[in-house]
């Protein structure tokens, strides 16, 4: 019984859903605050993401007459669910995730692909012009980053020889120097994650000045709130995944590791923000070119290197 409660506690409170949402709000705040500070502004107060969320919850939800009501209202939840489920496979407290099994890596990668797909469907079935274009752009962008992203995430597993994130982290925590081998893919992964999160400079799927806000134009009220929450959680999810794979430095003491985890996530967030601050939006076809011309070859090179190294190490 106690065991069961413990698991429930882990699942729903810490480091499960509650932690996920609270920390993702915090990250969102930091994201906006640092962004503002880099632009020489004051930026929002700390409770801003929470206030936004609560306000949206309280607003009336409008479902456009043209839209497919079911898909329109289900997609935000699908998106949110995918991220939360994926999060429980990621190590937060030390190197142990809440759940793990030998193939969880693949599951996580699949779950990772769901939020953009949900946004695509949401946009497509809103049946408005802007959202349709936004949806098409989401799909185009997925086509651009998915391959580099998958390969750069998989390359480290080749050395570790495991398909479980927990074991992978464990392996690299035991051999910290091996991480530097993966530096090239760490960089490509960072870029493709940025691309995946549709943040500037890869934000053409929601380019405000071109297509208003892309796929989510027609969303309002509660449904928009869930999409925003899902997006925040996705940010945290991606950052945690990145830190699990590429920055698995551990001390072995659980609480120190947790603090390390926080430090690592903040550091990655800083990198992502810097990317957002310093560049102009890249056109969708240039994104495509960039991903296939530069990112994909680098990741492939790494795979070959890692395969060779595996024989040596």
């Amino acid at each position, binding site marked *: 019984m106690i065991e069961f409660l413990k698991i429930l506690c882990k699942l729903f409170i810490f480091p499960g859903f509650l932690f996920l949402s609270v920390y993702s709000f915090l990250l969102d705040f930091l994201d*906006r605050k640092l962004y*503002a500070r880099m*632009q*020489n*502004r*004051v*930026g*929002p*107060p700390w*409770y*801003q993401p*929470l*206030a*936004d*969320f*609560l*306000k*949206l*919850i*309280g*607003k*009336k*939800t*409008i479902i456009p007459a043209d839209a497919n009501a079911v898909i329109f209202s289900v997609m935000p939840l699908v998106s949110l669910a995918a991220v939360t489920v994926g999060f429980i496979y990621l190590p937060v407290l030390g190197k142990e995730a809440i759940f793990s099994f030998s193939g969880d890596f693949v599951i996580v990668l699949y779950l990772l692909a769901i939020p953009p797909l949900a946004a695509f469907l949401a946009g497509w079935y809103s049946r408005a012009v*802007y959202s349709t274009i936004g949806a098409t752009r989401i799909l185009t962008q997925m086509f651009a980053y998915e391959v580099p992203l998958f390969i750069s995430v998989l390359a480290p597993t080749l050395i570790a020889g495991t398909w479980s994130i927990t074991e992978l982290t464990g392996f690299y925590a035991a051999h910290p120097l091996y991480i530097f081998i993966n530096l090239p893919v760490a960089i490509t992964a960072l870029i493709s994650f940025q691309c995946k999160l549709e943040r500037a400079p890869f934000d053409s799927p929601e380019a*405000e000045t071109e297509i*208003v*806000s892309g796929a*989510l*134009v*027609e*969303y*309002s*009220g509660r449904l*928009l709130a869930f999409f925003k929450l899902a997006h925040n959680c996705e940010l945290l999810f991606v950052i945690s995944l990145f830190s699990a794979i590429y920055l698995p430095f551990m001390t072995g003491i659980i609480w120190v590791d947790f603090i390390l985890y926080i430090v690592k996530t903040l550091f990655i967030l800083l990198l992502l923000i810097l990317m957002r601050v310093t560049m102009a939006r890249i056109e969708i076809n240039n994104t495509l070119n960039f991903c296939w011309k530069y990112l994909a070859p680098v990741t492939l090179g790494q795979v070959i290197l890692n395969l060779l190294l595996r024989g040596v190490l």
Partner: protein
Amino acid sequence: MSLIKKAIDWGTKKSPWIIHFNAGACNGCDIETIDSLTPRYDLERVGILKQGSPRHADVLICTGAVTLQTRDRLIQIYEQMSDPKFVIAIGTCACTGGIFEDCYCVTGGIDSVIPVDVYIPGCAVRPEAIISAVDKLLGSLDNDKKEGGGNYES
């Protein structure tokens, strides 16, 4: 229940997202509106974000004396916003028509078309006045628990 309601009210007060519409202004007030989002005045301090889609916005920031051609669009945008919603009329022309009141092609002020919650006279309004207006709008929510989005004849 009331706790949730309180939380939502608090959120509404702390996070007014705006959408901006120019209904035939001279640009002056529009630029000052945008200006109030940039570093010197930075409205994000009080939670304001500029949105592109009326569906996402809570506050319609409106400038200009409402020309006949923008009139329909103004109503349309107002209707697309989801409740609760508020309207701020920025600039003398948005309040009453101002200097354009005698023109044959304007209806004269935002409130001749949709209900307005806050008036900010000024030609052009200063960003400080906009900040103070936002403050007053949010303050007025406290007093009479205003729902916003009253009835209007179009």
